[in-house]
């Protein structure tokens, strides 16, 4: 009897996915059964694709069944490949083409107000994620994937990186902890991932290990040219204590995030809406990140139905010094962006200062003044940041100074 494997999902509520069962046999050729919700439109296409994958891996005898609930081709390919690799040792990878639209890199200091978590083994949530315009999309291989689905999720996440257009969102993946996480990188680094989230980070060595693995893969594959950033997530008491050494552990660490569910568990307390229990940790993370010159990023707000609560939470987060927040539902994105964006009052105040700053420069003055009042350099810097942000978020016209009336 040959090896047997089953991958993917089926049943009530499952959409845009498929379930593949495979048995390698000794004889009898390829016995393929396809049951599909879209059989009329794509039945022939699905058969052709499955046979193509099987042929690619040089399999000539197998019984394979695909139960499809409207999966896109890159999902079907991932499920079949995962099933095959469960049964077979091979170095070959059946890759969908990397879309031209996905070949973008991201800047170290880009906005990271919102980053949308997507479970790494749920294709239906990935397909339209980009249309909601989060700053970043996290394909999560860690906590959002059941332990027995972690292997197959790698193929899905890899194919999503290649074939799903996220419309400009930073393409992020949260890898697993430890050795498994380093193995995850093999499925990500060659496929134009922009940023790796490193969970349960407690020591700078964890960042070094990730960077070592990335370098090893990049050396092997000369085609990788894009920068790969790292966002360590602080989720424990020890992590909080080591926050600054983690934040400053490598040049490609662009932000430091905090995960409060695990952190409060580690403290032996519970997460509350007011967040008194995490005040120290959040402040530490903000301080450590700022000291290292990177972005501090806050934890997710879990009540997806409470938009007002979320808004207040973001305002508190912004007041503490955070530059962004995770989200677990697309509806949270706009609220987070609105709350992190400079308010009309902030923009008005900043315009005054920045206008005075440019005027002083043109007149060759070293000191910026508003009326008789001197403006300190840090205040000018903050105003410049506010204006830049307002420009980026289309809250201010590029040429605002031409029409500005003092």
């Amino acid at each position, binding site marked *: 009897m040959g090896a047997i494997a089953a991958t993917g999902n089926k049943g009530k509520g499952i*959409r*845009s996915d498929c379930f593949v069962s495979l048995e390698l046999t000794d004889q009898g050729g390829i016995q393929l059964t396809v049951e599909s*919700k*879209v*059989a*009329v*439109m*794509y*039945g*022939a*296409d699905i058969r052709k694709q499955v046979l193509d994958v099987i042929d690619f891996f040089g399999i000539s005898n197998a019984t394979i069944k695909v139960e499809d*609930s*409207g*999966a*896109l*081709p890159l999902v079907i390919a991932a499920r079949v490949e995962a099933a095959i690799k469960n049964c077979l040792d091979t170095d070959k990878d059946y890759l969908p083409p990397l879309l031209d639209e996905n070949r973008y890199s991201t800047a170290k200091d880009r906005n990271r107000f919102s980053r949308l978590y997507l479970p790494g083994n749920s294709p*239906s949530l990935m*397909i*339209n994620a980009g*249309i*909601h315009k989060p700053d970043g999309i996290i394909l999560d291989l860690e906590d959002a994937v059941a332990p027995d689905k972690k292997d197959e999720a790698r193929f899905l996440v890899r194919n999503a990186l290649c074939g799903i257009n996220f419309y400009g969102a930073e393409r992020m993946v949260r890898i697993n902890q430890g050795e498994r996480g380093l193995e995850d990188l093999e499925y990500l680094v060659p496929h134009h991932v922009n940023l790796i989230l490193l969970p349960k980070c407690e020591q700078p060595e964890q960042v070094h290990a990730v960077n070592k693995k990335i370098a090893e893969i990049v050396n092997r594959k000369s085609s990788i040219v894009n920068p790969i950033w790292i966002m360590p997530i602080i989720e424990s008491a020890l992590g909080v204590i080591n926050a600054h050494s983690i934040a400053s552990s490598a040049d490609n660490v662009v932000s430091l995030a905090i995960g409060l569910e695990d952190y409060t568990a580690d403290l032996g307390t519970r997460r509350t809406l007011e967040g008194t229990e995490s005040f120290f940790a959040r402040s530490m993370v903000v301080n450590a990140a700022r000291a290292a010159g990177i972005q501090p990023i806050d934890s997710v707000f879990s009540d997806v139905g409470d938009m007002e609560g979320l808004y207040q939470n973001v305002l508190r987060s912004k007041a503490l010094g955070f530059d962004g927040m995770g989200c677990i*539902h*697309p*509806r949270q994105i706009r609220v987070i962006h609105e709350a992190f964006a400079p308010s009309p009052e902030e923009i008005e105040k900043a315009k005054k200062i920045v206008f005075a700053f440019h005027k002083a420069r043109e007149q060759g003055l070293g000191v910026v003044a508003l009326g008789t009042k001197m403006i300190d350099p840090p205040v000018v810097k903050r105003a410049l940041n506010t204006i830049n942000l307002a420009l980026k978020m289309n809250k201010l016209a590029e040429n605002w100074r031409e029409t500005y009336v003092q």
Partner: protein
Amino acid sequence: MCNKEVTTSHVPSHPKYDKLVTNAAGRIVPTVINGRPQVPYMGVGKYKPDGFRAAPKLSSCVDFPADGNKVIPTLKEALLKAGLRNGITISTHHHFRNGDLVATQIFDIAHELGIKDLMWYPSASFPCHEPMTKYLEDGTINRIEGSMNGALGKFTSEGKMKGLGVLRSHGGRYQAVQDGEVHIDIAVIAAPTADFFGDANGVNGSAACGPLGFALADSEYADKVIVVTDNLVPFPCIPWQINGNRVDYVVVMDKIGIPEKIVSGTTEITKSPDRLLLAEWSAKFCDEAGLIYDGFSFQAGAGGTALSIGIYFSEILRERGWKARFARGGSNKYLVKMLEEGLVEYILDGQTFDLDGVRSMRDNPHHTWTSPFTSYNYHGKGNFSSIVDIVILGATEVDVNFNANVVTHSDGYLLHGIGGWQNTLFGKCVILPVPLFRDRNPVIRDEVTTICGPGELIDVIVTERGIAINPLRTDLIEKMKNSSLPIKTIQDLKEEAERICGVPDKPKFTDEVVAVVKWVDGTVLDSIKKIAK
């Protein structure tokens, strides 16, 4: 025009359909259906038949009880008195939606009596009407003219229905009755409240459903009218949405509907972020194109996406201090909230989807009931549909010529009725918020499986990956030139769908026609063919 003779062994001698021609939409359609001659679709507004309205036989009041009491002990007796026999047409309304307990009972009785070849003429069918399939199979029912949803649609698509199915819009149903194309022999009107004289309404009683407008034509034109109620009140039943003066018999039974299925949960605002985005973009489009103004009007369909438009309209109206002069129902709690907040001045309502809608219609004089006659009827001296500024609708498919389909799915199966969809296309700006693809099922394609709405009446397609404006609407294209929304061509959208999903194969049909789609004027717009196995 109709055969009034009582026949005991009625066997239809005519074929289901005959004489196929290509109509103005380029579709091949029969010109004889169930023995009746038909006019093929000629184009929007092209067909204007001569002649007179159909009329039921004269009644004389002396034939009815002087004390006004028309109550008959059972539905069976009432049906027999009304002349239940082979080959006649029996009509029902769908105000109880999936909670209807009356329609099936009529055919249970017919089956028990061995009656054959009935035509069922519902204003719509629902999953609760699945038991009708056994009566279609055993010949009790010859065919359905109205809508064939779910299991009934599948049954029809597989070629099992004896007669030819005919799909009509709500307005088309009124038109067919009014111009005599369909003669109703017995109308059974389930009424949440009625008196012994037959006056009836839908706003009171445990089966309250709001208006009874879909039964209006039936009450006016049928030979015999039976009102069935589970809430008999002493005369007079106020308000009377159905006049007792048109009613022959009244039947009282324990329960005519299941309230929680009458006001069903299908009419909740969507929580799907993708659909909310469609609703948000649709509202934004209306705003940027200048379609929203103080005193504008709108109508949104019953789907979750369409319902959500109200949230975004409300935001815009509140911000500007504007209000809509009227909104067309189907109403529900969200529209009622707009009315009560003063964002909408009047609701003109064809059906209510929840108890808030029923309450508002009963208690608020600014929330009034309408019928397919006032809203949609082709033979009226005008109707409301063309007065509405913005119409938001759904579709199963849209093609690159903006033609849309609401009755079949891309696998070829008939699954839905037309409802008021065709009629509302006459609004000033018709917007279809639809996903570019559902799972792996492109919504925008080269050609729709079935054409229900001609592209010239459909103005804007809003998808999550771009918005296409009908090239005929140069005014809208001009207004949206500098829009912040992603305006694309419909061809672009189709190609994007195919890039993501692949190019779909078409369903395989036999040559046999199993149902037709009528246009609002009674002409034949398209044929639905039997699925090839």
